[in-house]
């Protein structure tokens, strides 16, 4: 499908026109007719029959056929338990190559005619299948949980369905799901949050960073008691891809001297700027930052403390920066930078 689209786009750019090109006005009418037809279908069998017919007629008359394919697929999404034959028909459409092209709804359209498939048949078929699959997997999960069947649970390889089930599972079901020991980081994260399982959370955050792990990390301050969350966020074995986010997440913990100390201790390291931003989010950290600037334990810590004041929306922080910029004992380059901020 993409190859065909690309070829057509290239052809249009070279000044030609695709064989399957249709203007928008023709599309509007085709979709209207197809939508009415799809809605009027009394049952799944009728819709399935129309899929077949439309697919065949797409060869000779692609515009109305593709409109009907699309509308019929959408209507079929409502089927609860589709027949095997219907499913096969939809599966066959997931690699459908579009025949009809039109202008993109593109504000740059005047620039030379970016032409795209008029109907996303394959994508719509994917969506229909996914809706069916997920419903089936959710049902299977519920059934397996009711039976306490660990092996059946493990056989259901659908992380999204798992996550949805985890969101509504009882405590006993959660423990069963935990025992199934899914390797999916999204599932593990969801379980860690629902169960308050620090061990599981730690494992996820020590493994190579994933979007799901980042979601878990962002949820820790609310999901765990502050001291527990601090331990997880300040774990020295955290994957490097999580470290900046972990420092920033610390700013959402209930303020404490321990959290402040953890952030101050990290000011001079590779993620010190993230510590600085976390510290900047609470003016109660201002006195400690002032001490860092006065003591200047090392150049990096000094710079990050200055950044923290720069980011802190607080008059006291600004006053400290102003004093720094006028202090001839401070490094000239830093004073110049700070003066720039104050302007």
């Amino acid at each position, binding site marked *: *499908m*993409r190859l065909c*689209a*690309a070829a057509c786009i290239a052809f249009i*750019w070279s000044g030609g026109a695709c064989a399957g090109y249709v203007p*928008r006005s023709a*599309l509007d009418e085709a*979709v*209207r007719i197809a*939508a009415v037809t799809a809605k009027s279908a009394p049952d799944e069998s009728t819709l399935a029959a129309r899929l077949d017919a439309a697919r065949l007629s797409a060869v000779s008359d692609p515009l109305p056929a593709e409109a009907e394919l*699309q*509308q019929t697929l959408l209507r079929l*999404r409502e089927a609860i338990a589709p027949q095997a034959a219907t499913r096969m028909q939809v599966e066959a459409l997931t690699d459908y190559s579009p025949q009809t092209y*039109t202008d*993109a*709804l*593109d*504000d*740059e*359209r*005047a*620039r*030379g005619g*970016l*032409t*795209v*498939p*008029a*109907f*996303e048949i*394959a*994508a*719509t078929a*994917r*969506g229909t299948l*996914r*809706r069916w699959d*997920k419903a089936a997997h959710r049902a299977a999960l519920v059934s397996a949980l009711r039976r306490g069947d660990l092996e059946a649970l493990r056989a259901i390889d659908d992380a*999204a369905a798992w996550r949805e089930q985890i969101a509504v599972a009882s405590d006993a079901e959660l423990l069963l799901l935990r025992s199934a020991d899914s390797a999916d980081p*999204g599932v593990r994260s969801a379980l860690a949050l629902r169960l308050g399982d620090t061990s599981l959370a730690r494992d996820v955050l020590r493994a190579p960073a*994933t*979007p*799901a792990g*980042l*979601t878990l990390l*962002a949820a820790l301050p609310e999901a765990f008691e502050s001291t527990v969350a601090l331990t997880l966020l300040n774990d020295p074995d955290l994957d490097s*891809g999580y*470290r*900046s*986010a972990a420092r*920033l997440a610390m700013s959402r913990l209930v303020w404490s001297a321990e959290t402040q100390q953890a952030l101050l201790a990290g000011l001079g390291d590779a993620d010190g*700027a*993230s510590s*600085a*931003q976390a510290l900047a989010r609470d003016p109660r950290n201002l006195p400690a930052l002032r001490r860092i600037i006065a003591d200047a334990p090392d150049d990096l810590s000094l*710079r990050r403390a200055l*950044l923290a004041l720069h*980011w802190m929306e607080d008059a006291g922080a600004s006053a400290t920066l102003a004093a720094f910029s006028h202090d001839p004992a401070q490094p000239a*380059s830093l004073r110049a930078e700070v003066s*720039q901020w104050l302007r």
Partner: protein
Amino acid sequence: MAALSRVTAALLFSVTATAAAQVLTLTEDSYGDTLVPLGYPVPLPVDSQTPVDGFRRYAALQARLDELALSSDSIREQTIGQTLAQRPITAVQLSDADALTAEGFAEPAALINGGIHAREWGSPEVVAALVEHYAERQNDGGLYRYLLDNLNLIVIPVLNVDGFLQTQRYPDTFLQTEYSGDPTPADLSAEPAEYRNYPRDGRFRRKNMRNVDETLCAAGSTGCVADGMLGVDLNRNNTHAFASGNQNSNASGSLVYHGVSAASEPEIQALYAAGNLGPAARLRLYVDTHTFSRVYYGVNTGRTRRDALARALAQRMSAATGGVDRYPYNPTPAGQGIGSTDERFAYDYQIPAYTLELEPSANGGSDYGSFGYHHDGFVLPASEIARVREEITAANTVGLYRMAGPPSLIAAQVRRVDSDLLVYDARWMRDGSTRALTQFGDGNLEPGVAYRLWLAFNKPMRWRDPQTQAITQFIGQSIDLAPQIALTGRDAGGAAFSFALATTAEGWRATPPGTSAGCLRYADDAYQVVFTLPTGSPAIEARRLQLAVTATDFTGQALDTNPATVADWAGGWANYEDDAGRADTDVGGSDRTLVLVDDGSSAAAGGSGGGGSVGLGSSLTLLLAAWLRRQRAQKSRGKPRLQ
């Protein structure tokens, strides 16, 4: 930029949507009346300063830039304006402190913009990645140091700050509406029909926040203002072709509302202010980064050379992403326009200027297995952005490197291998706004003696694989990795000769300047070979003997054949001579300016010779005495080096 969407699903949605205006929620694969299943996880902003598999929250992204600026002498932040909500708009300047190239000429500039359209989250990530990439490599002594020293690069990661924050405020929620469902604009007829039933606000806000509050609100809701359609399309608010073409609207609710007047919006004024940091007259490249459709939109201004160079450059940049046609070039015909930023920079400065549409392709989220929602192309899966960052950083690097200027051969030395004795030394030195050649040595070569030839250029000429340290093609480029070196001239009897020099390559020089057989200024700006002339070679005791060097930079840009006149940009390359000595062809050629033995017959053999005789007569005389003194000193010390 591109409010690109597939017709299909837009129309489908008009069938299934019941209300004229709806607040909808993106989901991975959950279905419902107000749910829009994408087919992949919905990315949420990540509170991380460092790059992640995802899209960073604005505050963290900005903090990252602050940190990089504070920790590097080559990175500075400039406040270039304020948004309507009085938030600062920040440009990052990547450059050394002076405005001069390493040779002392006026530095060129480039401007790369991001985040003009709020919902195009890939853009700030990609533009910020350029800053991060260069910051990490600023002390590489090679390509990146060269770019920082010789170019004033201005980068705006997020221009439409207010709008971007609005999309991050509602990362999975948006207002979609048909026009009739929202406040009716004064001039409904001005709205192009295809912009109806579009997502307008929340995650899919495109415009700035003029006359818009931060609440997402459908018409008919109580307790909030249904202002989601308002705002100005900043990519229609520009001074060139303002309110022109059919992709504009003067209706304030339109997705492509151009505003009350050209450059009325503070964001656009800030963009122009950023260009002035160049300064504007020194700009050579502009890239406005958008999503989606994977294309370099461009502008033909009607100047043939500029237009051809802009096309060639786009193709080079595209190649760095994985193929010449991966990001095809698609320029607006000359004379047409829509009021976009690339048009403004293209016409006002006659430079290559692009609207770069990141991936996905025009197929939208289908490229990643989406379920076909018409605007899913604006929601790049989090798992894809790291790759896109890398690809576009490579593409931008190609553009910056190429527009930094064509290569010139600016120094050469010939030494005997056995004694390291310098027999020829030449260097083009800045002389005001031009270069003057100084060269000394008798240049007479003996048969059967091995000589080492060292050639140095005004830019790093090759790319070195960071892992293996081997010279290799820069991503997507394809060039001859070794220069071609020939000797031309007239033999002892006066007959013309020209032959390729048989050499043993010692390769591009990565060792620092000043070290044995090192580079001139930057890693891989110099190349070294060993050669031996056989008895009977016409070059032995030649009346005239000159080098002919053919090489390209790593993007395939050939040598300026006359280094005396320094190449610059003037709607095409100026002073960039070809083999015929013409400076209006933009192709360059072979350098024949270095004359080892001079019989006074300028460019007697092998082409124009360019500026081969510039400054030679007087400087040769003046330097001969110094060279002889140095030779004596070298002999007394054993194996001297001049580098």
